[in-house]
């Protein structure tokens, strides 16, 4: 469904600060995939998402979505068929507006007309969805979202994203800012929605156990390259120790290379 062809991203090209964040990356994401992505800081995970979502345009290579070249398509256009959740729970909802207003805005994607769509039927519909979260939000439709906890806001963002049925969802460490209990809750919800709505998803996480337990495919990124791409049965057999092992082996090699260069 999504295909990256030799995508590359270089920041500050041509200056002393030049930094290659993504290097000639090839990636094919298939319909129904749920890919977990791990990698150390600066490995290029978030930049990869920025390229896919259109926040940045790649400095080289192309991006295809359903065989359509979207390399130069602006972010807001891609948002019509891609959903993205950020690490920061504040980015998914508007704090200074009520819960029902937020839900109304996020219910459908694309340009908004001059119709007043928020009515009592809609409110009941929203209450139904919120009841499903079992966070007691169904009675707080008129409260500002700013009053909700991070976990509640992230769960709400997730719910609204699932309802808009995007073709692809990008989860950028969306539980990293939450306490363990809420993080668990949001992760369970993530699994549920992906199953229920048959979503195609990519999820960045720092938790190796989650990365192994969730999804059908696992990518390990390092220095802008895909180091490891495991799927299906192979992925089920992975253990945290094995992952850490692979990671260290590569790192040591790098380290050794650096040493030989310096000496």
């Amino acid at each position: 469904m999504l295909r990256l062809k030799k995508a590359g991203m270089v920041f500050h090209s041509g200056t002393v600060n030049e930094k290659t964040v993504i290097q000639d990356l090839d990636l094919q994401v298939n319909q129904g995939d749920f890919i977990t992505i791990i990698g150390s800081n600066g490995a290029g995970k978030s930049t990869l998402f920025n390229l896919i979502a259109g926040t940045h345009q790649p400095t080289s290579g192309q991006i295809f979505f359903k065989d359509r070249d979207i390399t130069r398509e602006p972010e807001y256009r891609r948002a019509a068929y891609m959903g993205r959740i950020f690490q920061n729970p504040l980015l998914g909802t508007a704090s200074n507006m009520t819960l029902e207003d937020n839900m109304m805005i996020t219910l459908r994607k694309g340009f908004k007309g001059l119709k007043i769509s928020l009515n009592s039927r809609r409110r009941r519909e929203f209450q139904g969805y919120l009841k499903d979260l079992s966070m007691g939000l169904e009675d707080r439709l008129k409260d500002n979202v700013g009053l909700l906890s991070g976990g509640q806001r992230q769960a709400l963002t997730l719910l609204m994203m699932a309802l808009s049925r995007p073709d692809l969802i990008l989860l950028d460490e969306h539980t990293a800012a939450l306490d363990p209990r809420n993080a668990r809750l949001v992760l369970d919800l993530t699994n549920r929605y992906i199953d229920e709505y048959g979503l195609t998803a990519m999820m960045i996480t720092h938790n190796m156990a989650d990365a192994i337990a969730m999804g059908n495919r696992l990518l390990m990124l390092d220095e802008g390259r895909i180091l490891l791409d495991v799927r299906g049965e192979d992925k089920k057999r992975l253990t945290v120790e094995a992952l850490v092992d692979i990671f260290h082996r590569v790192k040591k090699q790098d380290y050794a290379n650096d040493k030989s260069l310096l000496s």
Partner: protein
Amino acid sequence: MEGLIYGIMALGVFITFRILDFPDLTVDGSFPLGAAIMAALLFKGVPPFIAIAAAFTGGVLAGLVTAVIHNKLKVPNLLAGILTMTMLYSVNIRILGNRANLPLLRVDTILTNVVAAAGNLGLSREWAILIYFFLVLAVLKVLLDLFFHTDMGLTLGALGGNEQMVISQGVNPEHLKVIGVSLSNGLVAVSGAFAAQYLGFADVNLGLGIVVSGLASVMIGEFLLRSNRIGILTLRVILGSILFRALMYLARYYGYHIKMTPNDLKLITGLLIILALILSKKNYFRGRRKKNA
């Protein structure tokens, strides 16, 4: 009374400063623009209602210019507004027929019609104008409230607080900014058009300090009521505007007791805003302390 006329302008300022988080200084130019268009058209014998519509359109175009400069040239919003405002100064003089001032004393305005109609009902001039502006403002307020309940209006509301959310919804934030800033300046121009009729003249300097007075009105309103409902938010802008004009009136008529002259009003307005900022900061810290305790 002035509070009602300038209340329309304050609503415009409220849209940009509070809802869009787009400090728009075009207002200093679009207010006299509305006045100039109104005066020039009335002078030519154009029916008042068409003149008002033209003033609104003029304001919308002014806002459009600012928003496009900001969007396309990636200029900071403050600078974009100042650019448009400065250009409008020349435009306004041209509209007024290459002069800085156009008196409307011998021309029929909407107010002349209103006063005549009310005279038949036995109402005095003052009351007629007051009721008329009250109705105009009430209609505009309700229309604005309705607009902010539409899908587009709601999304506009989210833009100021969280641009990323708007992008994530597949909406181009640049389009929304154009709509919001244009609407705001349209309202400001209508306010200018009414002000010209009320004052009996249009002047290129009418807009001096208008943004600041509008902002002062918005901030005073914020002290009066607390709410997250758009109906209350617009209501408090209007109340703030009335209160602000009342304060200015008091300063003008009783200020001489403390050796204050009308020339000091702009200074007073600025100090008022600073006072409002200090007070809201204090409230903010008090709220924070409570949370921590």
